[in-house]
């Protein structure tokens, strides 16, 4: 990074944040602070929903995922269009009709106060605990490769996001996200173009696709019914729809984005924009990764993409094992490149047998090279036991720093910061709103002026922002952090979704039945999680199904909803 890069980085980040504060200055009543002035149109809603979901790790890690495993991960998003249609048809009109600030207010209106508080508490617990990850995950990568202090990176990005979220509220989040996403798209497109230009100096684009396909990086759709396969059409369609329904329909960080629309039409079109654009967006990020794989078949990659960790391990390499592996890897790469070029030559020739033979030789050469990489990772962990063996998060950033021109490097680093700020702002905004509307206004101070609640919401946003920074600063003390947070989400999401599905579709179940069913189901999920050895993703479905069945049983035992409960639920 040189001075130009830093100017581009700081100029981009600060100008968007200052714009967010200026655009929404003087917001004093609760409605406009939490939902904006009600003039948000569908492009802003659509981009805001997209930016909230796409955190920095999406843009850092997904190309690495494409590099390692190809395009198959795109299937995870196959359920999203259907989930967004369900939300648009059933969830959204009711949220808007009831003029709620938070999704959990709806639970209060449909059921009762205790169910609303339970929903809000589950959200705050889950999202609050995970709050630090959105800052920590990209900060650890960026600070490593840029040689910045990790704590300074976390604190700076945390304070910037707190400043404009607190100052401008929901409207500031939506309007800054629009420009942040603009920076993200521009940066990713620029990186894609540079990659294509660099690639074409080695081979033609059709040949690049042949190589990617030959190494199984372009297997985007797999209709296999094998449950052991991680990404298939069916798991993406069904599991993905379930997850998207929970996330977009009941998570306040998303609900707050689309209930602020100027009308039902604007909110619906914002959601449908995501239904149409989500899959191609993920596809292009994964394709970038698959083409990076091809690029690194002709341009020698480092043996381990986290070069800072590799250099630290080299310093401990007293017996020279790492250096020897480096040399072996370099030699294997030369052999592999030659084997791939022979294969491409054969492909353009007229001898199909030679093509099969040379392709097999290229695959063998690739396997040999990958075996050396695997050996190098083991040796790295032996030399520095704290080092992580996975380096896929570092693939894209390594390409950026090595191959992009100055100025563009600053823009791409701005992309990662922008996506951190965009998703973090929406999370903080949702945590502050839920704490104010569902807890503080309901339990502590019921009839205060709007200005008081706006002030309270600002304090709660600062509180959650500081929690996020604090958690991120100490996050490295927790083993396998990102997976831990995903497990946490899966454990809670199923029950929360069941509460909303019952509220929308099962009229005969009342507040008392669903409240106790949610508690029992949540406890059972905790027990099952400790007993069963299944993938944590299944707990989304198990929790939801259990909660709905138990609620039906409880309601049958309680008899029909009493008039008292009915009136309470409408209070």
């Amino acid at each position, binding site marked *: 990074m040189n001075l130009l890069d830093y100017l581009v980085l700081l100029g981009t980040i600060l100008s968007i944040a200052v714009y967010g504060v200026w655009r929404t200055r003087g917001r004093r009543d609760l409605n406009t602070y939490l939902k904006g002035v009600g003039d948000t149109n569908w492009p802003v809603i659509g981009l805001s929903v997209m930016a909230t979901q796409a955190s920095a790790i999406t843009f850092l890690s997904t190309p690495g995922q494409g590099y390692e495993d190809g395009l198959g991960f795109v299937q995870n998003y196959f359920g999203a269009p259907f989930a967004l249609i369900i939300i648009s048809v059933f969830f959204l009109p009711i949220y808007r009709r009831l003029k709620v600030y938070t999704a959990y207010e709806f639970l209060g209106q449909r059921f009762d106060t205790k169910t609303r508080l339970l929903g809000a508490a589950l959200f705050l617990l889950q999202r609050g605990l995970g709050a630090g990850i959105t800052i920590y995950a990209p900060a650890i990568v960026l600070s490593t490769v840029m040689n910045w202090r990790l704590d300074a990176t976390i604190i700076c990005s945390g304070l910037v996001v707190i400043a404009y979220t607190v100052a401008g509220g929901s409207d500031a989040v939506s309007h800054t996200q629009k420009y942040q996403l603009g920076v993200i798209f521009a940066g990713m497109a620029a990186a894609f173009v540079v990659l294509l230009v660099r690639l074409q100096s080695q081979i033609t684009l059709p040949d690049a696709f042949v190589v990617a396909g030959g190494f199984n990086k372009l297997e985007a*759709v797999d209709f296999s019914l094998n449950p052991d396969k991680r990404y298939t059409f069916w798991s993406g369609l069904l599991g993905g729809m379930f997850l998207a329904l929970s996330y977009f329909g009941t998570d306040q960080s998303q609900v707050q984005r689309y209930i602020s629309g100027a009308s039902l039409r604007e909110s619906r*079109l914002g959601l449908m924009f995501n239904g*149409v654009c989500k*899959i191609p967006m993920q*596809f292009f990020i994964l394709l970038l990764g698959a083409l990076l794989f091809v690029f690194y078949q002709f341009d020698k990659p480092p043996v381990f993409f986290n070069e800072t960790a590799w250099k630290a391990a080299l310093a401990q390499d007293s017996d020279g094992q790492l250096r020897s592996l480096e040399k072996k890897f370099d030699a294997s790469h030369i052999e592999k490149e030659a084997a791939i070029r022979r294969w491409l030559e054969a492909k353009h020739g007229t001898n199909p047998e030679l093509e099969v033979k040379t392709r097999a030789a290229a695959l063998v050469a690739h396997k040999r090279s990958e075996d050396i990489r695997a050996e190098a990772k083991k040796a790295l962990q032996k030399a520095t036991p704290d080092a992580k063996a996975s380096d896929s998060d570092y693939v894209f950033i390594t390409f950026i720093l090595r191959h992009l021109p100055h100025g563009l490097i600053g823009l791409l680093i701005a992309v990662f910061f922008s996506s951190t700020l965009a998703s973090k702002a929406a999370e903080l905004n949702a945590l502050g709103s839920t704490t104010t509307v569902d807890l503080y206004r309901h339990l502590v101070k019921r009839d205060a002026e709007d200005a008081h609640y706006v002030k309270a919401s600002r304090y709660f946003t600062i509180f959650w922002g500081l929690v996020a920074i604090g958690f991120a600063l100490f996050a490295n003390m927790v083993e396998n952090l990102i997976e831990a947070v995903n497990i946490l989400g899966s454990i809670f999401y199923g029950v929360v979704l069941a509460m909303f599905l019952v509220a929308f579709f099962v009229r005969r179940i*009342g507040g008392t039945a669903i409240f106790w069913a949610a508690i029992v189901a949540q406890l059972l999920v905790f027990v099952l999680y400790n007993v069963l050895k299944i993938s944590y993703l299944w707990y989304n479905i198990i929790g939801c199904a259990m909660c709905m069945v138990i609620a039906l049983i409880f309601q049958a035992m309680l008899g029909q909803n009493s008039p008292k409960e009915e009136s309470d639920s409408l209070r």
Partner: protein
Amino acid sequence: MNFDPHSPKVDVPPTPEDDGTSLPLLPTWSSVYRFVVIVFLIYVLLLTILSRVFA
């Protein structure tokens, strides 16, 4: 509890929510949803072709 997601029975006034989409080629919401599903099917078809061609 008498709650029906399809009718405005809760104690809030029904809002004259815009039923039309104001989109020239997709005038109703059901046509918008059909469009999203058709686009999804086209994506799956194109991705399947990509997978097969370069397998």
